[in-house]
């Protein structure tokens, strides 16, 4: 490994640490009393300092060192996290980011970090001159006891007879994730899925809800034997996994691209070999050709898998972007992110990053009103922007949703008529028409040119980008209620975790995205509602769908059958199958639409023995 490769590694790792710093700073800004963020930031900056020193990047190391000094004072409680200090830390993170990029690019000499260095030093020395200690004294112990309701340790034991304990555990974790921030999950997620997982797991949760709520949420997932909540005495050091990504071997995307191309060539050669072997009618040659065909197909599959990347790798830089924009424009915005674990092909993910920046900028600049305006409208002064990723049918849907003023249809319509984009007789713009008008090149209604969302150019750029990837853009907008943009991206490469179920001799995959729980049909009280089977589940009636009947599978059904409860929004359906086989990651593939095919499949996947298995679409069953 030569120096340039070390430099790339340094760059990649520093970016990750800086991303962690930014996330923790945002967390800290929301709760300046919290003691967790500063520990994590300190460690990340310390790591960068060490790596930069090893690489001989003096300016990075120096800036990191001085920032570390300031952080140390904050960590010890000698200094409190005021707005000014936090702003300074944000600036210093930005400078570190620039310094890292410039150093790796060999432009360290052009770099001037002296202004930030001075500011950081001043802030640190200001403390020394402060006599006496700041009025808002904080305990000087390095670790502050967690305030009530923060940082609780939760231990869960599943019932011994629970089928698929791993799936249940993951389900529980997903439910509690909605309540707050999880960390220190034990055992590691990989172990949850392992054969020998005994149904005991633990995690820590930071959430502003009572113990009872946490316990209830866990128990509602079903099959829970015991839940124990312990308030943390002294905050244990936050594990790296909390903010940072799982450790993987880094592979340059160009390597993967090259490998993909080579495999493309291999496939061509393979086809020639197959044709030749057919011509020669030599059984040995044919066997060989078939063998090589299979191998190259598997190789292709492996590469596709290696390219899958969770969306957080792009999403994680947005909280900072939204915060900075909101501050500059004087808006109050709560930014939420959901579905960070959904995976996309790395190439698709990189392509949509810019598109999402456009949409988020639009939402902050044009969507969310100023706090005064919101108050006057009877809305809370703080606007909400949510960025989410979800698997839907055969697509991945990425949404940017705001609760702002909505798109001014009158204005868009007038402009569209003026440009001849719609019939002059058009009276209203439906959502469908709206997106088509907005997606027209250069279309804008922005009266002013702002440096935030540019000249209103945005949606057309986004639409072009998404279309080029084989996807689609949708928009829903209600005056005074807000706007939602949905980017629907192709799933040919998308991966999803699924339950594998069996009905008769056939297997079907069911993505766990909409699986609320699984239970034994015998244990549930089956009744009839409007002539349809239903069961009572915690005092609610849930209609049942018998997969065996729906798919017209013949044969005897087993006496004991599991029910998979699917939930979308408020709607629930119990899907009765013969057996749960297991759960695994599956690659979603499209299938050729066949006449009469039941409209309950979103695609198909290939299980390890090479056999295709259809994927059930929860959306069509609930």
């Amino acid at each position, binding site marked *: 490994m030569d120096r340039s490769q070390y430099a790339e590694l340094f760059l990649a790792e520093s970016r990750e640490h800086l991303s962690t710093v930014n996330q923790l700073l945002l967390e800290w800004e929301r709760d300046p009393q919290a003691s967790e963020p500063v520990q994590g930031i300190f460690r990340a900056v310390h790591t960068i300092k060490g790596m930069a020193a090893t690489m001989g990047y003096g300016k990075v190391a120096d800036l990191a060192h001085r920032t570390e000094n300031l952080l140390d004072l904050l960590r010890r409680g000698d200094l409190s996290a005021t707005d000014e200090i936090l702003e300074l830390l944000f600036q210093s993170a930005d400078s570190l980011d620039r310094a890292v990029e410039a150093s790796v690019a060999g432009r360290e000499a052009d770099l001037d970090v002296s202004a930030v260095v001075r500011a950081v030093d001043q802030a640190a020395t200001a403390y020394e001159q402060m006599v006496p200690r700041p009025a808002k004294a904080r305990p000087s112990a390095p670790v502050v006891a967690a305030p009530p309701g923060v940082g609780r340790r939760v231990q869960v034991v599943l019932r011994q007879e629970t089928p698929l304990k791993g799936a249940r555990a993951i389900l529980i974790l997903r439910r509690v994730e909605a309540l707050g921030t999880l960390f220190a999950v034990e055992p590691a997620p990989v172990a949850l899925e392992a054969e020998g997982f005994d149904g005991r797991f633990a995690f820590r949760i930071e959430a502003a809800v009572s113990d009872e709520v946490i316990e209830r949420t866990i128990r509602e997932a079903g099959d829970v034997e015991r839940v124990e909540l312990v308030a943390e005495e002294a905050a244990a050091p936050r594990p790296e996994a909390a903010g940072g990504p799982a450790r993987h071997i880094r592979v340059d995307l160009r390597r993967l691209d090259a490998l993909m191309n080579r495999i493309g060539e291999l496939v061509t050669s393979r086809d020639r070999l197959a044709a030749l072997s057919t*011509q020669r009618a030599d059984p040995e040659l044919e066997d060989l050709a078939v063998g090589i065909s299979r191998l190259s197909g598997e190789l292709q599959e492996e590469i596709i898998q290696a390219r899958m990347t969770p969306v957080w790798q792009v999403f994680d830089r947005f909280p900072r972007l939204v915060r900075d924009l909101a501050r500059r424009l004087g808006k109050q915005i709560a930014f939420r992110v959901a579905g960070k674990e959904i995976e996309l092909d790395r190439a698709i993910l990189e392509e949509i990053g810019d598109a999402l920046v456009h949409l988020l900028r639009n939402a902050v600049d044009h969507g969310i009103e100023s706090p005064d305006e919101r108050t006057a409208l009877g809305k809370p002064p703080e606007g909400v922007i949510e960025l989410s990723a979800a698997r839907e049918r055969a697509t991945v849907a990425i949404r940017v949703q705001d609760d702002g003023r909505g798109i001014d249809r009158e204005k868009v319509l007038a402009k569209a008529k003026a440009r001849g984009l719609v019939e002059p007789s058009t009276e209203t713009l439906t959502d469908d028409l709206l997106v088509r008008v907005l997606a027209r090149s250069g279309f804008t209604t922005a009266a002013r040119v702002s440096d935030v969302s540019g000249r209103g150019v945005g949606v057309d750029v986004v639409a072009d980008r998404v279309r080029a990837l084989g996807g689609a853009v949708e928009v829903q907008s209600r005056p005074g209620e807000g706007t939602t943009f949905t980017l629907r991206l192709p799933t040919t490469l998308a991966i999803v975790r699924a339950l594998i179920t069996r009905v008769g001799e056939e297997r079907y995959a069911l993505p766990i995205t909409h699986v609320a729980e699984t239970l034994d049909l015998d244990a549930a009280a089956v009744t009839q509602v409007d002539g349809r089977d239903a069961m009572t589940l915690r005092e609610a009636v849930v209609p049942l769908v018998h997969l065996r009947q*729906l798919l*017209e599978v013949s044969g005897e059904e087993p006496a004991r059958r599991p029910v998979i409860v699917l939930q979308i929004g408020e709607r629930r359906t119990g899907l009765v199958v013969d057996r749960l086989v297991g759960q695994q990651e599956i690659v979603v593939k499209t*299938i*050729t*639409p*066949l006449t*009469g095919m039941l409209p309950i499949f979103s695609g198909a996947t290939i299980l390890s023995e090479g056999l295709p298995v*259809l994927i059930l679409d929860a959306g069509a069953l609930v």
Partner: protein
Amino acid sequence: MAGARILVFRIAELLCGAEVTAVREILPRQEATRVPGAPGAVTGIINVRGQLLPLVDGRRALGQSPAADRGSIVLLEVDGQTVGFTVDEVLDLFAVSADDLSDSGDLPGVDPGVVRAVGRRGGESFVLLDFDALLDPIISV
């Protein structure tokens, strides 16, 4: 029609042909996964090196008695779609001149709607199948 290279195969007792430009590959018979609700001529979907393709039973599609579980799969490119088509036996690949093909002359037991032409190979007649027409009621695009 002009001369062409034809892949000749047998389905039950019928000799059939496909233009070689539409043939992508010949594979050994493999297990298919049933697709609930699909037409009876569809055996299911098969995995061809990671691509999932519909498999059409040649015998059922041509109204012949149900298939024995032997033979080959001819992968066809029809209208931009790749489809597997089961045949009892692949026999030959040969060039025919336009003179050897006539666009009339039905063979008994075959729906004339799925026949593009009738040709001769050696002393026997074969039907050149019209796969567009054959697959039209099966694939919904």
